Protein backbone atom coordinates (compact mmCIF):
# COMPACT_ATOMS: atom_id res chain seq x y z
CA UNK A 1 0.00 0.00 0.00
CA UNK A 2 1.46 3.39 -0.97
CA UNK A 3 1.56 6.36 1.38
CA UNK A 4 -1.19 8.01 -0.62
CA UNK A 5 -3.40 4.91 -0.30
CA UNK A 6 -2.89 4.97 3.47
CA UNK A 7 -4.11 8.56 3.71
CA UNK A 8 -7.19 8.12 1.60
CA UNK A 9 -9.79 5.41 1.51
CA UNK A 10 -9.20 4.42 -2.10
CA UNK A 11 -10.43 6.28 -5.14
CA UNK A 12 -11.79 3.52 -7.33
CA UNK A 13 -14.81 1.30 -7.20
CA UNK A 14 -18.42 1.76 -6.22
CA UNK A 15 -17.67 2.48 -2.54
CA UNK A 16 -15.32 5.33 -3.46
CA UNK A 17 -17.91 6.63 -5.90
CA UNK A 18 -20.60 6.47 -3.22
CA UNK A 19 -18.38 8.41 -0.81
CA UNK A 20 -17.85 11.16 -3.36
CA UNK A 21 -21.55 11.22 -4.10
CA UNK A 22 -22.23 11.60 -0.38
CA UNK A 23 -19.68 14.43 -0.25
CA UNK A 24 -21.53 16.36 -2.92
CA UNK A 25 -24.89 15.78 -1.26
CA UNK A 26 -23.35 16.95 2.01
CA UNK A 27 -22.21 20.12 0.21
CA UNK A 28 -25.83 20.92 -0.74
CA UNK A 29 -27.21 19.91 2.65
CA UNK A 30 -24.81 22.40 4.26
CA UNK A 31 -25.98 25.03 1.79
CA UNK A 32 -29.69 24.51 2.44
CA UNK A 33 -29.21 24.14 6.18
CA UNK A 34 -27.71 27.60 6.32
CA UNK A 35 -30.13 29.34 3.96
CA UNK A 36 -33.81 29.56 4.88
CA UNK A 37 -34.76 31.41 1.64
CA UNK A 38 -33.53 28.42 -0.33
CA UNK A 39 -35.57 26.05 1.82
CA UNK A 40 -38.64 28.25 1.48
CA UNK A 41 -38.25 28.34 -2.28
CA UNK A 42 -38.39 24.54 -2.38
CA UNK A 43 -41.90 24.36 -0.95
CA UNK A 44 -43.35 27.76 -1.83
CA UNK A 45 -44.37 27.30 -5.49
CA UNK A 46 -45.66 23.74 -5.33
CA UNK A 47 -47.87 24.65 -2.38
CA UNK A 48 -49.07 27.90 -3.92
CA UNK A 49 -49.90 26.24 -7.23
CA UNK A 50 -51.73 23.38 -5.55
CA UNK A 51 -53.86 25.76 -3.45
CA UNK A 52 -54.81 27.86 -6.47
CA UNK A 53 -55.68 24.91 -8.74
CA UNK A 54 -57.42 23.14 -5.87
CA UNK A 55 -59.93 25.95 -5.51
CA UNK A 56 -60.38 26.01 -9.28
CA UNK A 57 -61.14 22.29 -9.14
CA UNK A 58 -63.78 22.84 -6.49
CA UNK A 59 -65.38 25.54 -8.60
CA UNK A 60 -65.33 23.44 -11.79
CA UNK A 61 -66.67 20.40 -9.96
CA UNK A 62 -69.76 22.39 -9.08
CA UNK A 63 -70.32 23.28 -12.76
CA UNK A 64 -69.14 20.26 -14.70
CA UNK A 65 -69.98 16.57 -14.55
CA UNK A 66 -66.50 15.68 -15.84
CA UNK A 67 -64.78 17.17 -12.82
CA UNK A 68 -67.28 15.56 -10.47
CA UNK A 69 -66.45 12.20 -12.05
CA UNK A 70 -62.71 12.76 -12.17
CA UNK A 71 -62.19 14.48 -8.90
CA UNK A 72 -58.69 15.73 -8.33
CA UNK A 73 -57.55 15.44 -11.94
CA UNK A 74 -56.39 19.05 -11.96
CA UNK A 75 -54.69 18.82 -8.58
CA UNK A 76 -52.91 15.64 -9.65
CA UNK A 77 -51.85 17.32 -12.90
CA UNK A 78 -50.51 20.34 -11.03
CA UNK A 79 -48.56 18.20 -8.60
CA UNK A 80 -47.12 15.92 -11.28
CA UNK A 81 -46.21 18.85 -13.52
CA UNK A 82 -44.35 20.30 -10.57
CA UNK A 83 -42.43 17.03 -10.22
CA UNK A 84 -41.18 17.51 -13.78
CA UNK A 85 -40.45 21.21 -13.36
CA UNK A 86 -38.76 20.79 -9.96
CA UNK A 87 -36.74 17.83 -11.17
CA UNK A 88 -35.29 19.82 -14.04
CA UNK A 89 -34.74 22.85 -11.86
CA UNK A 90 -33.19 20.71 -9.12
CA UNK A 91 -30.42 19.59 -11.45
CA UNK A 92 -29.73 22.97 -12.99
CA UNK A 93 -29.95 24.96 -9.74
CA UNK A 94 -27.48 22.67 -7.98
CA UNK A 95 -25.14 23.21 -10.91
CA UNK A 96 -25.79 26.95 -10.83
CA UNK A 97 -24.85 27.00 -7.13
CA UNK A 98 -21.38 25.83 -8.16
CA UNK A 99 -21.20 28.49 -10.85
CA UNK A 100 -22.38 31.27 -8.55
CA UNK A 101 -19.79 30.29 -5.97
CA UNK A 102 -17.01 29.89 -8.60
CA UNK A 103 -16.38 26.43 -7.23
CA UNK A 104 -16.38 24.37 -10.43
CA UNK A 105 -12.60 24.54 -10.76
CA UNK A 106 -12.14 22.87 -7.38
CA UNK A 107 -14.76 20.25 -8.13
CA UNK A 108 -13.35 19.31 -11.50
CA UNK A 109 -9.80 18.86 -10.20
CA UNK A 110 -10.98 16.69 -7.32
CA UNK A 111 -11.31 12.93 -7.88
CA UNK A 112 -15.03 13.42 -8.52
CA UNK A 113 -15.73 12.02 -11.95
CA UNK A 114 -18.27 13.64 -14.31
CA UNK A 115 -20.58 10.64 -13.97
CA UNK A 116 -20.50 11.00 -10.18
CA UNK A 117 -21.20 14.70 -10.47
CA UNK A 118 -24.21 13.92 -12.67
CA UNK A 119 -25.38 11.35 -10.12
CA UNK A 120 -25.04 13.93 -7.32
CA UNK A 121 -27.03 16.50 -9.29
CA UNK A 122 -29.82 14.01 -9.96
CA UNK A 123 -29.89 12.81 -6.36
CA UNK A 124 -30.16 16.39 -5.15
CA UNK A 125 -32.93 16.96 -7.67
CA UNK A 126 -34.87 14.01 -6.23
CA UNK A 127 -34.43 15.34 -2.69
CA UNK A 128 -35.53 18.81 -3.74
CA UNK A 129 -38.64 17.42 -5.46
CA UNK A 130 -39.61 15.33 -2.43
CA UNK A 131 -39.12 18.29 -0.09
CA UNK A 132 -41.22 20.49 -2.36
CA UNK A 133 -44.00 18.14 -3.38
CA UNK A 134 -44.75 16.09 -0.28
CA UNK A 135 -45.93 19.06 1.84
CA UNK A 136 -48.11 20.26 -1.05
CA UNK A 137 -49.60 16.78 -1.51
CA UNK A 138 -50.34 16.49 2.21
CA UNK A 139 -51.90 19.94 2.21
CA UNK A 140 -54.21 18.85 -0.63
CA UNK A 141 -55.54 16.06 1.59
CA UNK A 142 -56.28 18.54 4.35
CA UNK A 143 -57.72 21.31 2.16
CA UNK A 144 -59.60 19.37 -0.54
CA UNK A 145 -59.87 15.86 0.83
CA UNK A 146 -57.96 14.74 -2.25
CA UNK A 147 -55.01 12.39 -1.87
CA UNK A 148 -52.76 11.90 -4.85
CA UNK A 149 -51.43 8.85 -3.01
CA UNK A 150 -54.78 7.13 -3.72
CA UNK A 151 -53.48 6.53 -7.23
CA UNK A 152 -51.35 3.81 -5.69
CA UNK A 153 -48.55 2.11 -7.63
CA UNK A 154 -49.19 4.00 -10.88
CA UNK A 155 -48.21 7.16 -9.02
CA UNK A 156 -44.71 5.72 -8.54
CA UNK A 157 -44.48 5.03 -12.27
CA UNK A 158 -45.67 8.57 -13.14
CA UNK A 159 -43.39 10.19 -10.58
CA UNK A 160 -40.34 8.23 -11.68
CA UNK A 161 -40.85 9.00 -15.36
CA UNK A 162 -41.35 12.71 -14.77
CA UNK A 163 -38.36 12.82 -12.43
CA UNK A 164 -36.13 11.19 -15.03
CA UNK A 165 -37.42 13.45 -17.78
CA UNK A 166 -36.65 16.45 -15.57
CA UNK A 167 -33.10 15.18 -15.08
CA UNK A 168 -32.64 15.01 -18.85
CA UNK A 169 -33.75 18.59 -19.34
CA UNK A 170 -31.69 19.73 -16.35
CA UNK A 171 -28.52 18.08 -17.64
CA UNK A 172 -28.89 19.70 -21.05
CA UNK A 173 -29.36 23.06 -19.33
CA UNK A 174 -26.17 22.39 -17.31
CA UNK A 175 -24.36 21.71 -20.56
CA UNK A 176 -25.57 25.00 -22.00
CA UNK A 177 -24.51 26.78 -18.81
CA UNK A 178 -21.02 25.32 -19.10
CA UNK A 179 -20.80 26.42 -22.71
CA UNK A 180 -22.45 29.84 -22.49
CA UNK A 181 -21.87 30.74 -18.83
CA UNK A 182 -24.21 32.60 -16.54
CA UNK A 183 -25.62 34.49 -19.52
CA UNK A 184 -27.68 31.35 -20.12
CA UNK A 185 -28.92 31.21 -16.52
CA UNK A 186 -32.50 32.09 -17.34
CA UNK A 187 -32.74 28.96 -19.54
CA UNK A 188 -32.78 26.95 -16.32
CA UNK A 189 -36.06 28.60 -15.37
CA UNK A 190 -37.95 28.65 -18.65
CA UNK A 191 -36.62 25.66 -20.65
CA UNK A 192 -39.09 23.14 -19.32
CA UNK A 193 -42.07 25.46 -19.89
CA UNK A 194 -41.47 25.17 -23.64
CA UNK A 195 -42.91 21.66 -23.54
CA UNK A 196 -45.80 22.42 -21.20
CA UNK A 197 -48.38 23.18 -23.93
CA UNK A 198 -47.55 19.89 -25.72
CA UNK A 199 -47.47 17.63 -22.68
CA UNK A 200 -51.25 17.32 -22.33
CA UNK A 201 -50.99 18.25 -18.68
CA UNK A 202 -54.47 19.69 -18.12
CA UNK A 203 -56.24 18.51 -21.28
CA UNK A 204 -56.25 15.28 -23.29
CA UNK A 205 -53.99 14.74 -26.26
CA UNK A 206 -56.99 14.56 -28.61
CA UNK A 207 -57.64 18.26 -28.07
CA UNK A 208 -54.54 19.07 -30.12
CA UNK A 209 -54.41 19.13 -33.93
CA UNK A 210 -52.98 15.98 -35.51
CA UNK A 211 -49.57 17.43 -36.35
CA UNK A 212 -49.18 18.68 -32.79
CA UNK A 213 -50.17 15.29 -31.42
CA UNK A 214 -47.16 13.85 -33.24
CA UNK A 215 -44.87 16.33 -31.47
CA UNK A 216 -46.58 15.65 -28.16
CA UNK A 217 -46.07 11.93 -28.71
CA UNK A 218 -42.31 12.20 -28.57
CA UNK A 219 -42.46 13.71 -25.08
CA UNK A 220 -42.44 11.20 -22.20
CA UNK A 221 -44.50 13.65 -20.17
CA UNK A 222 -47.44 13.38 -22.59
CA UNK A 223 -47.70 9.64 -21.99
CA UNK A 224 -47.49 10.17 -18.25
CA UNK A 225 -50.32 12.72 -18.17
CA UNK A 226 -52.44 10.62 -20.51
CA UNK A 227 -51.81 7.68 -18.21
CA UNK A 228 -52.71 9.77 -15.19
CA UNK A 229 -56.06 10.69 -16.71
CA UNK A 230 -56.70 7.04 -17.61
CA UNK A 231 -56.19 6.11 -13.97
CA UNK A 232 -58.30 8.94 -12.57
CA UNK A 233 -61.09 9.04 -15.17
CA UNK A 234 -61.27 5.54 -16.65
CA UNK A 235 -59.85 3.77 -13.58
CA UNK A 236 -57.44 1.81 -15.80
CA UNK A 237 -53.66 1.67 -15.82
CA UNK A 238 -52.38 1.89 -19.41
CA UNK A 239 -49.16 -0.15 -19.64
CA UNK A 240 -48.73 0.89 -23.28
CA UNK A 241 -48.40 4.53 -22.18
CA UNK A 242 -45.98 3.54 -19.43
CA UNK A 243 -43.85 1.61 -21.91
CA UNK A 244 -43.77 4.62 -24.27
CA UNK A 245 -42.72 6.93 -21.45
CA UNK A 246 -39.98 4.59 -20.22
CA UNK A 247 -38.58 4.02 -23.72
CA UNK A 248 -38.57 7.74 -24.51
CA UNK A 249 -37.00 8.57 -21.15
CA UNK A 250 -34.22 6.06 -21.74
CA UNK A 251 -33.43 7.80 -25.00
CA UNK A 252 -33.72 11.29 -23.47
CA UNK A 253 -31.45 10.42 -20.56
CA UNK A 254 -28.82 8.87 -22.81
CA UNK A 255 -28.80 11.91 -25.08
CA UNK A 256 -28.73 14.37 -22.17
CA UNK A 257 -25.75 12.66 -20.48
CA UNK A 258 -23.95 12.67 -23.83
CA UNK A 259 -24.76 16.37 -24.28
CA UNK A 260 -23.54 17.18 -20.75
CA UNK A 261 -20.26 15.34 -21.33
CA UNK A 262 -19.81 16.94 -24.74
CA UNK A 263 -20.30 20.44 -23.32
CA UNK A 264 -17.97 19.57 -20.43
CA UNK A 265 -15.29 18.65 -22.93
CA UNK A 266 -16.03 21.77 -24.93
CA UNK A 267 -15.66 23.89 -21.77
CA UNK A 268 -12.30 22.23 -21.13
CA UNK A 269 -11.21 22.90 -24.69
CA UNK A 270 -12.22 26.53 -24.52
CA UNK A 271 -10.88 27.18 -21.04
CA UNK A 272 -14.29 28.15 -19.73
CA UNK A 273 -14.28 26.35 -16.39
CA UNK A 274 -11.99 28.80 -14.60
CA UNK A 275 -13.81 31.75 -16.14
CA UNK A 276 -17.24 30.72 -14.93
CA UNK A 277 -18.33 32.87 -12.03
CA UNK A 278 -20.70 35.34 -10.55
Amino acid at each position, binding site marked *: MSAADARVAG*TRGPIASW*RRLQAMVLRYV*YLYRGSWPRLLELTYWPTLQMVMWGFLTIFLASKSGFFVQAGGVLIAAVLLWDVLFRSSLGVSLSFLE*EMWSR*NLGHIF*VSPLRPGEFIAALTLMSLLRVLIGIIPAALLAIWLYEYSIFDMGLPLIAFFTNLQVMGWSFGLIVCGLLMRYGLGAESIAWFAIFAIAPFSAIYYPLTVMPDWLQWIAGILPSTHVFEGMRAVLVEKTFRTDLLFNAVALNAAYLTVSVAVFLRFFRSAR*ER*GLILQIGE
Partner: protein
Amino acid sequence: MSAVEAEAPPAAIRVSKLTKSYGDVLAVNRLSFSVPEGTTAALLGGNGAGKTTTISMLLGLLLPTAGRVSILGVDMLKRRYDALPRMNFSSPYVDLPKRLSARENLMVYARLYGLRRPGRRIGQLADELDLTAFMDRPSGTLSAGQRTRLALAKALLNEPDVLLLDEPTASLDPDTGDRIRSYLEAYRDTRRATILLASHNMAEVERLCSRVMMMRAGRIVDQGSPAELIRRYGRANLEDVFLDIARRRRTGDTREAAA
Protein backbone atom coordinates in the same frame (compact mmCIF):
# COMPACT_ATOMS: atom_id res chain seq x y z
CA MET B 1 23.46 7.92 -18.74
CA SER B 2 25.82 10.06 -16.65
CA ALA B 3 26.28 9.57 -12.91
CA VAL B 4 24.49 12.86 -12.25
CA GLU B 5 21.50 11.81 -14.35
CA ALA B 6 21.39 8.46 -12.64
CA GLU B 7 21.13 10.13 -9.22
CA ALA B 8 18.62 12.78 -10.23
CA PRO B 9 15.17 12.23 -8.72
CA PRO B 10 12.49 11.21 -11.20
CA ALA B 11 10.31 13.96 -12.62
CA ALA B 12 6.98 14.32 -10.82
CA ILE B 13 5.78 16.71 -13.51
CA ARG B 14 6.78 16.28 -17.11
CA VAL B 15 5.49 18.57 -19.84
CA SER B 16 6.34 18.04 -23.49
CA LYS B 17 5.66 20.44 -26.35
CA LEU B 18 2.52 21.66 -24.63
CA THR B 19 0.55 24.01 -26.85
CA LYS B 20 -2.72 25.85 -26.44
CA SER B 21 -4.24 28.03 -29.07
CA TYR B 22 -7.54 29.87 -29.19
CA GLY B 23 -8.13 30.41 -32.88
CA ASP B 24 -5.19 32.47 -34.06
CA VAL B 25 -4.03 33.31 -30.55
CA LEU B 26 -1.24 31.10 -29.27
CA ALA B 27 -1.56 31.17 -25.47
CA VAL B 28 1.07 28.50 -24.79
CA ASN B 29 3.62 27.59 -27.42
CA ARG B 30 5.38 24.20 -27.37
CA LEU B 31 6.23 24.37 -23.70
CA SER B 32 8.54 21.65 -22.35
CA PHE B 33 9.82 21.30 -18.83
CA SER B 34 10.02 18.89 -15.96
CA VAL B 35 9.96 19.27 -12.20
CA PRO B 36 11.87 16.66 -10.20
CA GLU B 37 10.13 14.93 -7.32
CA GLY B 38 10.52 16.69 -3.98
CA THR B 39 11.43 20.08 -5.41
CA THR B 40 9.70 23.42 -5.91
CA ALA B 41 9.64 25.14 -9.27
CA ALA B 42 8.03 28.37 -10.38
CA LEU B 43 6.49 29.70 -13.53
CA LEU B 44 7.22 33.41 -13.73
CA GLY B 45 6.01 35.92 -16.23
CA GLY B 46 3.93 39.00 -16.71
CA ASN B 47 0.19 39.05 -17.10
CA GLY B 48 -0.85 36.98 -20.10
CA ALA B 49 2.44 35.09 -20.24
CA GLY B 50 0.60 31.77 -20.06
CA LYS B 51 1.24 30.71 -16.45
CA THR B 52 -2.37 30.11 -15.43
CA THR B 53 -3.10 28.50 -18.80
CA THR B 54 -0.22 26.11 -18.22
CA ILE B 55 -1.34 25.23 -14.70
CA SER B 56 -4.91 24.71 -15.95
CA MET B 57 -3.62 22.25 -18.53
CA LEU B 58 -1.58 20.41 -15.90
CA LEU B 59 -4.75 20.01 -13.85
CA GLY B 60 -6.82 18.93 -16.81
CA LEU B 61 -9.19 21.88 -16.50
CA LEU B 62 -8.05 22.96 -19.94
CA LEU B 63 -7.35 20.60 -22.82
CA PRO B 64 -4.19 21.38 -24.77
CA THR B 65 -4.20 21.79 -28.51
CA ALA B 66 -1.07 19.64 -28.67
CA GLY B 67 1.59 18.18 -26.42
CA ARG B 68 1.69 15.90 -23.42
CA VAL B 69 1.45 16.24 -19.65
CA SER B 70 2.53 13.52 -17.28
CA ILE B 71 2.14 13.85 -13.52
CA LEU B 72 3.45 11.19 -11.17
CA GLY B 73 3.92 9.03 -14.22
CA VAL B 74 0.27 9.35 -15.25
CA ASP B 75 -0.69 10.64 -18.69
CA MET B 76 -3.03 13.47 -17.70
CA LEU B 77 -4.77 13.51 -21.06
CA LYS B 78 -5.76 9.86 -20.84
CA ARG B 79 -5.90 8.86 -17.16
CA ARG B 80 -6.14 12.05 -15.12
CA TYR B 81 -8.38 10.46 -12.49
CA ASP B 82 -5.51 8.16 -11.53
CA ALA B 83 -3.39 11.18 -10.59
CA LEU B 84 -5.98 13.62 -9.22
CA PRO B 85 -6.29 11.97 -5.77
CA ARG B 86 -2.56 12.59 -5.28
CA MET B 87 -2.65 16.20 -6.47
CA ASN B 88 -4.29 19.41 -5.37
CA PHE B 89 -4.24 23.10 -6.13
CA SER B 90 -5.25 26.53 -5.05
CA SER B 91 -5.86 29.58 -7.14
CA PRO B 92 -7.25 33.05 -6.59
CA TYR B 93 -9.39 32.44 -9.67
CA VAL B 94 -11.41 29.70 -7.97
CA ASP B 95 -13.38 30.18 -4.76
CA LEU B 96 -14.84 27.89 -2.19
CA PRO B 97 -18.61 28.22 -1.62
CA LYS B 98 -19.07 31.40 0.39
CA ARG B 99 -22.17 30.30 2.30
CA LEU B 100 -20.50 27.23 3.70
CA SER B 101 -18.35 27.64 6.77
CA ALA B 102 -14.62 27.01 6.53
CA ARG B 103 -15.11 23.68 8.34
CA GLU B 104 -17.98 22.62 6.06
CA ASN B 105 -15.97 23.43 2.96
CA LEU B 106 -13.02 21.43 4.17
CA MET B 107 -15.29 18.54 5.20
CA VAL B 108 -16.83 18.36 1.73
CA TYR B 109 -13.44 18.28 0.03
CA ALA B 110 -11.98 15.89 2.59
CA ARG B 111 -14.74 13.46 1.65
CA LEU B 112 -14.32 14.09 -2.06
CA TYR B 113 -10.66 13.15 -1.66
CA GLY B 114 -11.66 10.07 0.34
CA LEU B 115 -9.79 10.95 3.55
CA ARG B 116 -9.96 8.22 6.17
CA ARG B 117 -10.13 10.62 9.15
CA PRO B 118 -11.40 13.93 7.79
CA GLY B 119 -12.10 15.57 11.15
CA ARG B 120 -8.62 14.90 12.41
CA ARG B 121 -6.91 16.20 9.26
CA ILE B 122 -9.10 19.30 9.20
CA GLY B 123 -8.30 20.03 12.85
CA GLN B 124 -4.60 19.59 12.15
CA LEU B 125 -4.67 21.96 9.18
CA ALA B 126 -6.78 24.51 11.04
CA ASP B 127 -4.18 24.52 13.76
CA GLU B 128 -1.16 24.67 11.46
CA LEU B 129 -2.59 27.38 9.20
CA ASP B 130 -4.06 29.41 12.05
CA LEU B 131 -7.65 28.90 10.96
CA THR B 132 -9.12 27.59 14.20
CA ALA B 133 -10.73 30.84 15.34
CA PHE B 134 -12.98 31.18 12.31
CA MET B 135 -13.62 27.59 11.23
CA ASP B 136 -17.34 27.97 11.83
CA ARG B 137 -17.76 31.29 10.06
CA PRO B 138 -19.13 31.38 6.49
CA SER B 139 -16.22 31.48 4.08
CA GLY B 140 -17.66 34.56 2.41
CA THR B 141 -17.22 36.59 5.59
CA LEU B 142 -13.50 35.83 5.88
CA SER B 143 -10.86 38.39 5.01
CA ALA B 144 -8.86 37.93 1.81
CA GLY B 145 -5.90 36.62 3.78
CA GLN B 146 -8.05 34.17 5.73
CA ARG B 147 -9.60 32.94 2.50
CA THR B 148 -6.14 32.40 1.02
CA ARG B 149 -5.19 30.28 4.02
CA LEU B 150 -8.46 28.36 3.76
CA ALA B 151 -7.78 27.67 0.07
CA LEU B 152 -4.33 26.44 1.03
CA ALA B 153 -5.85 24.18 3.70
CA LYS B 154 -8.15 22.72 1.05
CA ALA B 155 -5.13 22.21 -1.22
CA LEU B 156 -3.29 20.32 1.52
CA LEU B 157 -6.21 18.18 2.75
CA ASN B 158 -5.21 15.03 0.90
CA GLU B 159 -1.49 15.54 1.63
CA PRO B 160 -0.83 15.76 -2.09
CA ASP B 161 2.35 14.52 -3.71
CA VAL B 162 2.02 17.28 -6.30
CA LEU B 163 0.79 20.72 -5.35
CA LEU B 164 0.00 23.37 -7.95
CA LEU B 165 -0.30 26.84 -6.48
CA ASP B 166 -1.31 29.96 -8.30
CA GLU B 167 -0.28 33.01 -6.25
CA PRO B 168 -0.18 31.03 -2.98
CA THR B 169 0.51 33.97 -0.68
CA ALA B 170 -1.57 36.62 -2.42
CA SER B 171 -3.40 38.86 0.07
CA LEU B 172 -1.31 37.71 3.02
CA ASP B 173 0.47 40.19 5.26
CA PRO B 174 4.29 39.82 5.32
CA ASP B 175 4.30 37.95 8.62
CA THR B 176 1.63 35.42 7.60
CA GLY B 177 3.13 35.12 4.13
CA ASP B 178 6.48 34.27 5.67
CA ARG B 179 4.92 31.64 7.93
CA ILE B 180 3.07 30.06 5.00
CA ARG B 181 6.27 29.91 2.98
CA SER B 182 8.00 28.17 5.89
CA TYR B 183 5.07 25.79 6.14
CA LEU B 184 5.24 24.94 2.44
CA GLU B 185 9.00 24.36 2.67
CA ALA B 186 8.54 22.03 5.61
CA TYR B 187 5.66 20.24 3.87
CA ARG B 188 7.74 19.68 0.74
CA ASP B 189 10.73 18.41 2.67
CA THR B 190 8.87 16.08 5.03
CA ARG B 191 6.50 14.65 2.41
CA ARG B 192 8.95 14.81 -0.48
CA ALA B 193 6.19 16.67 -2.28
CA THR B 194 6.61 18.47 -5.58
CA ILE B 195 5.35 22.03 -5.80
CA LEU B 196 4.82 24.10 -8.91
CA LEU B 197 3.78 27.65 -8.31
CA ALA B 198 2.95 30.68 -10.35
CA SER B 199 3.73 33.87 -8.54
CA HIS B 200 4.54 37.53 -8.94
CA ASN B 201 6.30 37.57 -5.58
CA MET B 202 9.96 37.31 -6.54
CA ALA B 203 11.20 37.07 -2.96
CA GLU B 204 8.89 34.11 -2.46
CA VAL B 205 10.17 32.42 -5.60
CA GLU B 206 13.80 33.04 -4.65
CA ARG B 207 13.23 31.48 -1.28
CA LEU B 208 11.10 28.49 -2.21
CA CYS B 209 12.19 27.42 -5.64
CA SER B 210 15.15 25.52 -6.91
CA ARG B 211 14.08 26.10 -10.50
CA VAL B 212 12.44 29.04 -12.19
CA MET B 213 10.95 29.11 -15.67
CA MET B 214 10.57 32.58 -17.10
CA MET B 215 7.61 32.81 -19.44
CA ARG B 216 6.71 35.35 -22.04
CA ALA B 217 4.03 35.12 -24.71
CA GLY B 218 3.36 31.47 -23.95
CA ARG B 219 6.97 30.33 -24.11
CA ILE B 220 9.77 29.67 -21.66
CA VAL B 221 12.32 32.32 -22.53
CA ASP B 222 14.81 31.36 -19.85
CA GLN B 223 15.14 28.98 -16.96
CA GLY B 224 17.48 27.97 -14.20
CA SER B 225 17.89 28.27 -10.46
CA PRO B 226 17.26 31.74 -9.02
CA ALA B 227 20.99 32.14 -8.40
CA GLU B 228 21.85 31.10 -11.96
CA LEU B 229 19.38 33.54 -13.45
CA ILE B 230 20.57 36.40 -11.26
CA ARG B 231 24.17 35.68 -12.25
CA ARG B 232 23.32 35.24 -15.93
CA TYR B 233 21.57 38.58 -16.15
CA GLY B 234 24.07 40.33 -13.88
CA ARG B 235 21.33 41.59 -11.59
CA ALA B 236 20.96 41.96 -7.85
CA ASN B 237 17.86 39.88 -7.44
CA LEU B 238 15.18 37.92 -9.26
CA GLU B 239 12.87 40.90 -9.49
CA ASP B 240 15.44 42.75 -11.58
CA VAL B 241 15.82 39.66 -13.78
CA PHE B 242 12.05 39.56 -14.21
CA LEU B 243 11.97 43.22 -15.23
CA ASP B 244 14.89 42.68 -17.56
CA ILE B 245 13.09 39.88 -19.37
CA ALA B 246 9.72 41.63 -19.39
CA ARG B 247 11.23 44.83 -20.83
CA ARG B 248 13.17 43.04 -23.56
CA ARG B 249 9.79 42.34 -25.06
CA ARG B 250 9.45 46.03 -25.69
CA THR B 251 12.98 46.51 -27.02
CA GLY B 252 12.64 43.49 -29.29
CA ASP B 253 15.45 41.46 -27.79
CA THR B 254 14.52 37.88 -28.49
CA ARG B 255 17.11 36.03 -26.47
CA GLU B 256 15.47 32.80 -25.57
CA ALA B 257 16.83 29.74 -23.91
CA ALA B 258 16.02 26.39 -25.35
CA ALA B 259 12.78 25.35 -23.76
